[in-house]
Structures are given as C-alpha cells and as structure tokens.
C-alpha cells in the first residue's frame, strides 16, 4: 500500500507540510482564509534539532496499536488507512498514549482526536504534505515488502 | 535571374535508366522514348542523357563535352587543355537543329589523354589529374563548362524537354550498353544548359530526382576535399560525394550507399554484429555525407548502374527486369513503354541500392 514516507536527508525544515496539511483538512477553499490568524492544527509535524529536521505523520502501521487500543471503535483501518470516526471518538486519548510515533493529536474541539488519513477524506488527491513538500522529503510510495516488491527489488 | 551556380535552385524531376548486362548495344532512341513518357514530370527547363559504351572507337580516351558561351572562351579552354592533354580528336558535337531547343551555346567534344610529363609532374593519379583540370576549367574559365569527361561515355544535356534534347543531340545515332536520362522541373532557373542533368565527373554520372535538405552540410564538407560546387545543385554535390567515396576513399558501391542513405541507428541496432559495426563505422566516419531529404538517383559508372533512394523513400523509383536488361525509372510507365513484358518489377526500399553491372565487369566493379 502507498504510504507517506519521509527522508530527513532532504527535509529543509520549512514547515510547509504543516500548512498545506492544515489547509487541506480545513474545508476552506482559500489558504489565506483557512490559515490567516488561525491556530495551526496539522496532522504532520516537523521535528527540528541541531540542523536536522523531518516531518512525522501517521505511519499507518499494519499492527496499529492505536486501533487495537481504541476504546470506542472510532479508529479503524479502511483499505490500509487508519481513519477516525470523529462522531464516535470521545477524546479519551488512549491512542495518544499508544502511538509510538506521537502522530495523533487532539482536534480543535478537544473532544476527539485528529490524525493523518492520507487525505482520503478531503479533495486533495495525493496527500497535501507530499504535494506541498518542495524537496521530495515527503513521498507517497508503496514500500511494503510484498512478493511483487521483492521481485522488483531483485 | 540568377543561374545555377549563382543561387541554389531546387527542382523536381523524372529519371530513367537501362542497362544490358550482356553488353548488347541499346540505341539512344529507347531512352528518349522512355523519358518522353514522363513528360509531365519536366517543365521544359532541362533534359539530358548519359550513355555508356558509346565511344567504342576511343574507349581509353577521356571524352570531354564542353559548353562555350563564346569562341573566346573556347580558345581559352583549348589553350588550357593543350597544355595539359594530348588532344586526339576535337569537333563540334553533331546536333539536329530544332525550334524546341534554343539559346544554344557552342558545344564541343574532345577526346584527350593527359600529357605524360604533366601528369608525372603533378604527382597525382590520372583520374585526380583529370578531375582537377575539369574543376579548374569550370571554376576559372568564364564561359566554358565541361559537362562530361569520362571514358567511353558521354553526357548530352540542354534546355528543353528531354525528348527534344535527345532528338537535338541525335541520340538515335548512338548505341551503348547503358543509358540514363533526366527530365527537369526546376522551380526558378532562368534556363542554363549547364544546369541540366545528368551531372558527371569522370565516368560517374548522376541523374537525380529530389531536393535534398542536407545540401549545405554535404556541400561544405565535400568542398574540403578539393571539390567546388559551382552549380549549387543536388546532383552536383551527390556526384562529388559518390566520386569522393568510391574513388578517393575506396568504398564499395554498397558501402557508399550506406553512407549517403545510411540505415537508421535503430535499424543498425537490429543488425548482426559485423554488419552493425560496419554501418556504425560508416555513419561515424562520414557523418557529414549523409544525404537526407527526398532523392532518387541513378548513378552511371564504367560497367554499370546503381539506383538508390533516400532512406525514407520520399521519391518514387521502380526497377524492372527483362532477360538481361534492367530498367530503372521514376514511374513504371517509363519502363513499360519500352518493355511491356517484364519478367519482374519492384520498388526497392529506401536506402536499398540496386546495383547492376555488365557481366564482363562483375569482377571489376567493387560492389
């Protein structure tokens, strides 16, 4: 399955992914209206330290601790994408407790969580962070070790 | 209007050729008949013929056919020739006057051989000596133009439709083992006899239909090797290229064909390794002599004819066979009119040379 992968070698720490992500999931058609003087609630976050930077977003694990631990059943895997039903979510944050990558955050309301859903719920197509990354530090690829991929690697 | 040599003049054309492999003499009338059929491919601004084996009385002498604008030019040219050649025979070329052929120059014919001492002093081989002399006349003597200089062959050309040109030169009085003919459709010539085809250098003659887009690339390259493209015509440059490749570089006819109508790189990639290596070599070594753009040519040489199309076959050309005779022409009708019952007729592929020689020359021609 195609997932978002990041390569810190090329991350410039420009943080544009965070802005494009927030915009893509804002439901607002203009970036300016979506982001100007508004809190930034990206589902991807850039870590920076000592000249190194990289973006982190949901890895869409095959054995997702967040989904397994979800007390409400709000988190589920749909076609490989870990999605959240914010109608069911009560914001208990067990998923925040579980996620080894720190990729789940409270949403605006504080009563539910928000996380990367690979832009499957907006009109973005390819994930906005990938499209917006100026240096291909974030890519959308299939790196699963499957039989076909193994053959291709050989 | 500027004439050939003063400006580049593209032209469309008709060509035809015939050869008897056994050497059976063919009357010039046959060729006139053939080329006349393609009357519409000419526009009356040039026609011509080349006959091989037509001078059995002087087979070893160079037959110079020369146009003169004036007697002064003739005298200057003859002085030039006198210094360099032994002139065995000289005369006006007999013609049959006609109202269809006008503005005639003086047309003279000389059977010559190089002066031994001058040839030796020049340190050139005989053919090179002759060709340099011819190029020198054509470049330097105003009003003199040598349009044929091979052995046992001759070019006859003039302004007019080719069938009228044939009648004018009384070709029914000549017989040869091979003939080529040309009807010209230039787009903007004022009409100059020298600009008509065939174009010849030594025993190589070319009739050509087409307009090559590589002209200036070819011209500028070939001019580095002692040629001077006075006429700025395709036929002239093709003739020089052929002369250069065959005579100066020692390529075979087939190899020369692979230079001027080189196989595509993509085709070469599918050849067997030896063939591919040869084709790659020829393209790399003579890249500037690749001729692109449409052409169909018939090359006449001592002992045979070669027909060749450009590699995309952008011009028509058919080949017919009947017994020991092989016919080559722009259109099938030009063959059928002189031989309705052919054993075989086909259209060679672009870049695929058709080489036919006298049986007696099989071993003498480097195919």
């Amino acid at each position, binding site marked *: 399955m195609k997932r978002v992968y990041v390569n810190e070698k090329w991350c410039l720490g420009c943080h*544009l992914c965070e*802005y494009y992500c927030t915009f893509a999931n804002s439901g607002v058609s203009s970036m300016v209206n979506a982001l100007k003087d508004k809190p930034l609630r990206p589902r991807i976050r850039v870590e920076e330290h000592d000249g190194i930077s990289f973006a982190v977003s949901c890895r869409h694990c095959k054995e997702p601790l967040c989904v397994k631990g979800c007390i409400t059943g709000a988190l589920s895997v749909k076609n490989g994408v870990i999605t959240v039903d914010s109608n069911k979510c009560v914001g208990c944050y067990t998923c925040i407790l579980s996620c080894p990558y720190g990729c789940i955050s409270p949403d605006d309301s504080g009563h539910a969580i928000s996380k990367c859903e690979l832009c499957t719920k907006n009109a973005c197509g390819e994930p906005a962070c990938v499209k917006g990354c100026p240096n291909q530090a974030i890519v959308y690829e299939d790196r699963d070790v499957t039989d076909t991929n193994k053959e291709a690697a050989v | 209007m500027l004439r050939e040599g003063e400006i580049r003049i593209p032209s469309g054309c008709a060509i035809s050729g015939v050869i008897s492999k056994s050497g059976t003499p063919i009357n010039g009338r046959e060729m006139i008949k053939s080329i006349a059929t393609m009357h519409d491919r000419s526009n009356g601004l040039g026609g011509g013929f080349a006959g091989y084996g037509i001078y059995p009385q002087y087979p070893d002498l160079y037959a110079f056919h020369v146009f003169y604008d004036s007697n002064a030019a003739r005298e200057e040219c003859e002085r030039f020739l006198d210094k360099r050649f032994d002139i065995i025979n000289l005369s006006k070329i007999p013609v049959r006057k006609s109202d269809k052929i006008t503005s005639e120059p003086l047309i003279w014919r000389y059977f010559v051989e190089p002066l031994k001492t001058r040839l030796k002093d020049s340190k050139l081989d005989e053919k090179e000596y002759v060709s340099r002399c011819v190029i020198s006349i054509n470049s330097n003597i105003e009003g003199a133009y040598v349009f044929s200089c091979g052995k046992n062959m001759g070019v006859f050309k003039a302004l007019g439709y080719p069938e009228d040109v044939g009648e004018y030169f009384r070709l029914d009085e000549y017989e040869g083992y091979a003939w080529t003919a040309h009807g010209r459709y230039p787009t903007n010539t004022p009409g100059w006899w020298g600009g008509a085809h065939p174009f010849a250098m030594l025993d190589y003659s070319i009739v050509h239909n087409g307009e090559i887009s590589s002209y200036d690339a070819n011209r500028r390259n070939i001019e580095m090797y002692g040629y001077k493209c006075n006429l700025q015509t395709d036929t002239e440059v093709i003739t020089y290229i052929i002369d250069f490749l065959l005579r100066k570089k020692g390529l075979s006819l087939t190899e020369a064909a692979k230079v001027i109508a080189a196989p595509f790189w993509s085709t070469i990639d599918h050849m067997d390794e030896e063939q591919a*290596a040869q084709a790659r070599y*020829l393209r790399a070594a003579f*890249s500037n002599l690749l001729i692109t753009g449409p052409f169909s040519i018939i090359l006449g040489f001592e002992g045979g004819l070669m027909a060749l199309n450009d590699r995309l076959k952008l011009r028509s050309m058919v080949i017919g066979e009947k017994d020991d005779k092989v016919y080559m022409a722009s259109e099938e009708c030009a063959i059928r009119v002189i031989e309705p019952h052919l054993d075989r007729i086909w259209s060679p592929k672009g870049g695929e040379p058709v080489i036919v020689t006298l049986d007696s020359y099989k071993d003498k021609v480097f195919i």
Partner: protein
Amino acid sequence: MAIDYLYPEYEIVRDYDKCIACRVCERQCSNEAHWYDDGKGKMLCDNAKCVDCHRCVSLCPTHALKIVKSGHTFKENANWTGKTITEIYRQANSGGVLLSSMGNPEPFPVYWDKILLNASQVTNPSIDPLREPMETVTYLGKKPAKIERDENGRIKNNLSPTLKLSTPVMFSAMSYGSISYNAHESLARAASELGICYNTGEGGLHEDFYKYGPNTIVQVASGRFGVSKDYLNAGAAIEIKIGQGAKPGIGGHLPGIKVSEDISKTRMIPKGSDAISPAPHHDIYSIEDLRQLVYSIKEASDYKKPVIVKIAAVHNVAAIASGIARSGADIIAIDGFRGGTGAAPTRIRDSVGIPIELALASVDSRLREEGIRDDVGIVVGGSVRSAADLVKAIALGADACYIATAACLAMGCHLCRSCQAGKCNWGIATQRPDLVKRLNPDIGYKRLVNLVHAWDHEVKEIMGGMGINSIEALRGNRLMLRGIGLSSTELDILGIKHAGQ
C-alpha cells in the same frame, strides 16, 4: 559608521492580506532578509539583504511575496548609469576588484536572436518526427583519414576514440566547489540517464561519482586539482581547459573557507587552503606545449579517450582553433563571452571575449578552408539558451553544445548572480550543508532530464520541418539559416544570407 552610498537594488513587496506568517520566507532566506516580529505579529524584511533569488517568492504558499526592482535612481545619464555609479561607490568603499557571477549581462547583440531558421514547403516534404525516425545521436571526435581494410576486405575500425551522445547537448564544466555535491550528482545522473556527458570542471571527481564515468568528462585545468591517473581514466573524455568565456585570460580562486573536508579530498589539496587556478597553464606557453600536454594525457589514458581542448572565444579564435586542431586534440570546445561563472572580475566578464555565434562561424569556416574540419569535433557553449539556439549552433557548424547556465536554471537557479557569496538559496552554488540539501538530486536530475528531452523533441520538430531526419545533415548546413537585421560583415562572418535572399 560610514555613510552607505548604496541603496537596495530590490524591494521585497509583501501582501499582508495574504501573508499567513508561516515564516517559510524567513526559514529559507540565507541572506536573512525576512524575520517575524512577535510584537507586531507580522513578517518584516530588510531590502538591503535581498539578492532577488526568489526562493521566498517560490515557496510562499499564498503568493504573498514579490520582489521588484527598487525604484531608486541616482541622478544618472546615458554615460553615468546607475550601475556605473554604484560600482564606483563600491570600489571607493572596498578598494577591490569588482566580482560578479554568471555570464556577461551587457546589451551586446545576441546573434542567435538575429538568425532565422528554414522549413520545407512543397518541393521537399517536411518530416513528422512522431511518425518517422528522427536522429539526434552525435559522435564527437576525429574522422578517420583513410579507410583501412583487413585481409578479407572488411573495413577496419580505425576510428579515434569518440564520445557518443544521444543528443548533441552536454553539461559544461562546473567544478565541485563552485557548485554543490547535490548539483554534481544531479548533473551526473541526468547525463547518465540521457546518454550524454557532464563535465567535472576543474575541481576533481568526487569518489561517489566515479560510477558515472561513462558519462563524465574530466577536466584538467591550470590548477590541476584532483588530477591523477585514475581521474584521467575515470571519464569518457578528458578536457584541457585553457580558458573560459566569462573570464578569458583569468585564473580562478576558490577561497579556503569553501575547501571543506570533502572538497579537499576531491581536489587533493589541504582542507581550508585556497584553491588557486593560475591564469595560464604553466606548462603551456605556446601551441607546441599544448601538443605535448595533449599527448601526455593520451599516453596516460592509453589513447582510449578523446581529448578536448577548451578555449574562450577571443578575437583570433579561428587561428587558435586551427592550431588546436593540429595539436592532436580530438575535440575543440569554444566558450563564448556570455558563458557563466561562479565568480569573475566584473570588468573581464563584461568586456573581454566575443560572442560564441561569431566565434563558431569563423572557426568552422576556417577549419573547412584548411580542410581539417573533419579532424576535430566542435563543441560550443556560452549561452545556448534553447533548442533554437542549439539548432542554429549546429547549422553554423557545431557538433554539439555545452550548456551550464540553462542546466543551473533547470536545477532551480534564478540567476540572482550572487554565486560568489556562497549562500545560494537553491543549493547549487554553495557548500553550506543546510543549503546544499535544498537541491534534492532526485528532483534536480529529473528536471535536467526533462529539459534535455524537451530540447531534443524541439530539435526534432525543427529538423523535421526542414526535411532533415538526422542531426548530421543539419551540421554546418548554413543554408538553413538566414540573418535578420545584420550588416553584411556580420552575415559574411556567419556565412549566411540575409532573410529574403
């Protein structure tokens, strides 16, 4: 503080209605022209620091930024232009030689733009490159003097070593040091994928890039940086650099500060030491010395690599080229005065040398007059900007073209002409790791490949229109060219007729 006589050349214009204060402009400006003011809650800027490289403009997600030329004017006149005045102030301030980057910006004639191309109509069919093969493969090098045959009469391969190019374009010399590792990797990978060559420049060959050898031209310049037997044998061809269009007659200087660990290793000089390329090669003071170097290099590379001699286009370029053609070199590269550079003295860049179009035409004509054009390949560079320039160069007589400024542009260069500062915001002309990483070679190489593919398509379209289906039939085919608005002297030198003739 002394009075600063200079006024910022550019103004950063920010549309505050659009600015979302994402600070990407701030983060991406190595000149620190932008900053966020917490108190005001908005982005501010210092125009004096802006070099007009457009990094911020390109990355601004809301298109809130533009850079405009400052409206400031000195009291200038036709003689004392703003530029001239500024330069005087700068020199009065520093006492130094003015340095500039990239090619000659002065309004000299661009002959490419005064030459028109031909196309077929009626008498000769144009050829559709989508339907018929259209060949741009180019072999660069000497043509054999004579045909040799083996005992079976087969032609022997007596070709001198040649460079085979899929299309007649190469990336010209830019050293590792003047440009970044990632820029080199982009060029090397693009050349490999395209089947063309890139050129190491004079900075040696990084060990990571030996694998691109079949598509590499290794350069030997006056500083001889990084030259070893392995280096000479690593590439597909060896180029002796005599001169460069941007600064004919001038050497080079890579400041020690840019000689990092990696560069020191590649150049084979101590870390932190200035890398100084002398103006001449100190073993070439005349043409016969060149011949010796050509043959030394051929010896060292076992006569398996074509040797290129690169010169700047200067006044007597034709005679020099003739000498080079007889020196044993396989290829002559000529660099016109609009060729780029990482740094050159401004006066030299702007006043020395001649346009490549005239140099090419006169060299090609001269070599043909001497009957030695087939003894060498000719490669020209110095601002070949498009497929049309390329076609015109080939028709004037070049075998292939070198491109570098166009290649840099493809990689993101915005021609801010501040290379000498080493703070290239696009990761090209810099060694600062945080800036170098801005050029991801995965992107850079692909953009180079795209550019050359695009040009190749265009060359094929143009050739097809002319009824030519192989690049060799275009080479030197000056009948395909006509001048427009040129004097008869210029037409004579170019060897072309005027449009309408």
